């Protein structure tokens, strides 16, 4: 049939490994320590889930793979190999596909990295967060700066030429000085990609309990001055915790990162992501551009055939081969447009304005451009630097409802 000859559509694959050595104090990802046997059974279940999706392979071919977590590098090289082999058995993975594995310092060795290379992994993402050991300790990280240096050296030694380093700012006890020092130390290593995330206090984390009142202030309470000290919530540990930097300092840190990294030849291609030209993370860009992706593993999200859904999050049923899906959402034209805007505007490239967008968002476009939060250039709309600082406020106005779409 003609169909069989048609070019296959692109699909991004996300594989979730929900295991880590120890939960960090700020982390609310679906991740927890687990014993060796559980990890083994999880790998088996993952393979089964991938196998059961092989029908997708008839219409799609894989353009990127991202193995995230948790700490995927906690798996043995053999286990990751089995997973990727399964994927290649069921899907055709493009030759030039970007294949990323998230790694944490302290879980890598030369052999493991070599096996990654052999499997076609061509991009690594290292979770460093900070170059200051005291900050790492407060975050609850399992490694030191020195251990990270060793891991980074190993990745280069194993031949990885596309490496990301994850950093965080706005941390307890962090100062502008310590942040600049972190940036400088990392830049000295010349990674290809740096993610610089502002610390978010997520509910249910020790950090939220410690600093959480502040997390609520984004709108309702933002009239108050940011408290630099420690909120005194009942039941919170009374051990002295250093305070969070105030909002002005936090924004200054972001600004410092942008300046410093751009000076070093990095481009901020998304709110929190910096890359050397050509080294942008294609997988993540796909999220912002609303390309289709399929997630495997518990809690993994997918966008497929105009629908968003997520795998259920419980490990028990998953290990027994029950791959139930939750939060199923069929996207309407209004959803499509809303998402195109609020995702696309996160990127430096921005959103190519269509006639429909100009009509529907006339008011927002006019107002926010006049006020200097948005900028249109060569038909593309993007956030200005000031717009990025307050992007949620602005992006919220780009969510539309069905009836607005019909007018």
């Amino acid at each position, binding site marked *: 049939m003609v169909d069989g000859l048609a070019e296959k559509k692109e699909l991004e694959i996300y594989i979730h490994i929900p295991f880590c050595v120890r939960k960090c104090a700020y982390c609310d990802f679906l991740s927890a320590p687990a014993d060796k046997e559980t990890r083994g059974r999880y790998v088996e279940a993952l393979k089964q889930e991938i196998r059961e999706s092989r029908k997708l392979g008839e219409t799609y071919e894989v353009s990127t793979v991202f193995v995230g977590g948790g700490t995927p590098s906690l798996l043995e090289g053999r286990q990751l190999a089995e997973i990727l082999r399964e994927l290649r058995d069921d899907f055709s993975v493009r030759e030039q596909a970007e294949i990323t594995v998230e790694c944490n310092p302290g879980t890598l060795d030369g052999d493991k990295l070599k096996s990654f290379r052999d499997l076609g992994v061509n991009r690594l993402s290292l979770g460093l967060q900070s170059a200051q050991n005291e900050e790492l300790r407060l975050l609850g990280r399992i490694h030191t700066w020195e251990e990270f240096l060793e891991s980074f050296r190993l990745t280069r030694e194993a031949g990885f030429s596309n490496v990301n380093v994850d950093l965080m700012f706005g941390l307890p006890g962090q100062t502008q000085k310590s942040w600049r020092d972190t940036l400088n130390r990392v830049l000295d290593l010349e990674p290809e990609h740096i993610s610089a995330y502002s610390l978010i206090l997520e509910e249910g984390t020790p950090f939220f309990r410690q600093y959480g009142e502040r997390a609520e202030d984004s709108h*309702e309470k933002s009239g108050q001055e940011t408290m630099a000290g420690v909120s005194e919530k009942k039941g919170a540990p009374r051990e002295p915790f250093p305070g969070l930097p105030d909002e002005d300092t936090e924004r200054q840190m972001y600004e410092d990162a942008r300046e410093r990294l751009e000076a070093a030849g990095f481009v901020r291609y998304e709110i929190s992501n910096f890359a050397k030209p050509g080294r942008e993370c294609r997988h993540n860009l796909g999220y912002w551009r609303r390309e289709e992706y399929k997630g495997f593993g518990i809690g993994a999200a997918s966008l497929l055939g105009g629908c968003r859904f997520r795998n259920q999050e419980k490990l028990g049923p998953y290990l027994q081969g029950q791959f139930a899906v939750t939060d199923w959402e069929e996207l309407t034209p209004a959803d499509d447009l809303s998402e195109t805007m609020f995702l696309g505007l996160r990127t430096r490239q921005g959103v190519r304005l269509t006639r429909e967008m100009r009509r529907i968002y006339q008011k927002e476009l006019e107002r926010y451009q006049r006020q200097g939060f948005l900028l249109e250039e060569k038909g593309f709309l993007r956030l200005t630097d000031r717009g990025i600082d307050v992007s949620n406020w602005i992006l919220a106005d780009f969510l539309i409802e069905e009836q607005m779409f019909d007018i």
Partner: protein
Amino acid sequence: MDQGKIRNFCIIAHIDHGKSTLADRIIEMTGLLTSREMQAQVLDNMELERERGITIKAQTVRTVYKARNGEEYIFNLIDTPGHVDFNYEVSRSLAACDGAILVVDAAQGIEAQTLANVYLALDHDLDVVPVINKIDLPSAEPERVIDEIEDVIGLEAQDAPRISAKTGLNVEEVLEAIVERIPAPGGEVSAPLKALIFDSVYDSYKGVIVFCRIKEGTVKRGTPILMMATGATAEVVEVGYFGAGQFIPCEELSAGMVGYLTASIKNVKDTMVGDTITSREKPCQEPLPGYKKVLPMVYCGMYPADGAKYPDLRDALEKLQLNDASLQFEAETSVALGFGFRCGFLGLLHLEIIQERLEREYNLDLVTTAPGVIYKVHKTNGEVIELTNPSNLPDPSEIEYMEEPVVSAEIMVTTEFIGSIMELCQERRGNYLGMEYMEETRALLRYELPLNEIIYDFFDALKSRSRGYASFDYEMKGYVQSELVKLDILINKEEVDALSFIVHSGTAYERGRKMCEKLKEEIPRQLFEIPIQAAVGSKIIARETVKAMRKDVLAKCYGGDITRKKKLLEKQKEGKKRMRQVGNVEIPQKAFMSVLKLDDK
């Protein structure tokens, strides 16, 4: 029916002294209602009333009591509203009675409202029968309270029943006292019809149900009637009396009786409380005295939070008005709030009740502007404007002078708090009229106070400064000339009409400063720095600044979990929806109401 066997009476009391409980007991003990039928408080049958523990709409019930002398008596218990906002309704209810039971709490003694109600009852020549309630309380001092009643009011009270309405203790003595001490009604059955309207409710099947006391003559089905003040006419369809919680039709109502009539009347405005019903064929010479048109005293703007709900709000107000002739409203437009209504109320409680009913029964989300009184603006061209909306104040150059309403207030307070209460009245621009000692430890303070100063939070302030011991009552006195100015609020340099209000020039600065501070708390940080200013005319008298939002950004989307991010933004958008856009600034709804609570510490 033998007039001699009828007793028309009401119960008067200070709030919480046990009026409704005693009414329940009377209804229960006269046996027309089984215990099963008893709701917790039969008379207070509006949900809202029950929650607030006060009676808003006067209600009435007829029971039959078999007295110790073996005779059966008809008791018409006419309930009276318990709040100063409804003073006129109280007076009309009293006019329908021949006697009153005065309930006084054995622990609290006489309060300001007790006095006000007793004087009102005595004005209507009612025989007042004192009853000491709550004698089961450990703190009860019935003998002291009896002395107080005799000393302060001058009522013989030595043999007043000492009861506990709650437990039913000695309530039978009250029933006997009603028979013995409250006079039977008079009135000539064959005279021309003369009936007093003391309440009415709208029923979608029967039309308006008019509650009346027949003073003279007889009314029955087919009687053509005339409402003497409004001029409305109708033909009676049904007459009857008040069973507990139901209307019981009967043949006729005649002089001395209390009951209801229906006549396919479509609007409660035709049956104003206090009006006299007579027969069109054989009219009486003179209407009953005391009728007056009740006018709203307090005005505010009410706006639907969601502009699309404007027609719903109009419908709801119309429905409420069917039962509440004292509620007034007319359409108005605000730059800040869009389309809404300027509504007039008898007082702040009335306002709050209507607001709650709109929100609860009609599911409307409202933005309410600061309540104000009616000012009289005398213009240089001789014209006099009654100002209910500050935005309509003419240019100062056109104003000769302004007047504001004042009330005469009576505050009863224990002596230790006299100082702080006088201070409060002073702050509220009160004019000291005098003080009397009720007994050694309690005094009655008399003040003239601007109505504007008491509609907001005077009652709360009174309670807090007297640790709950002060009680308060007032009545309208008239208008006096006053130095008044319009205080405007500018947000981001734009005047927000819905926040303007009229204030005495001497307090303008203080109020302006407090409002700016309050608004600074209420208005969330936005994309820009927002100045909040208070101005009188073109002069800025206070300023605060809401700093620009520094940061509102989501760093990361994990593993393509876009849905979570979208939900976050949706939540944010919902929050924005609940705000009003004024120029570039989004103002939360509650900011409009918050200016009322300036004295919150």
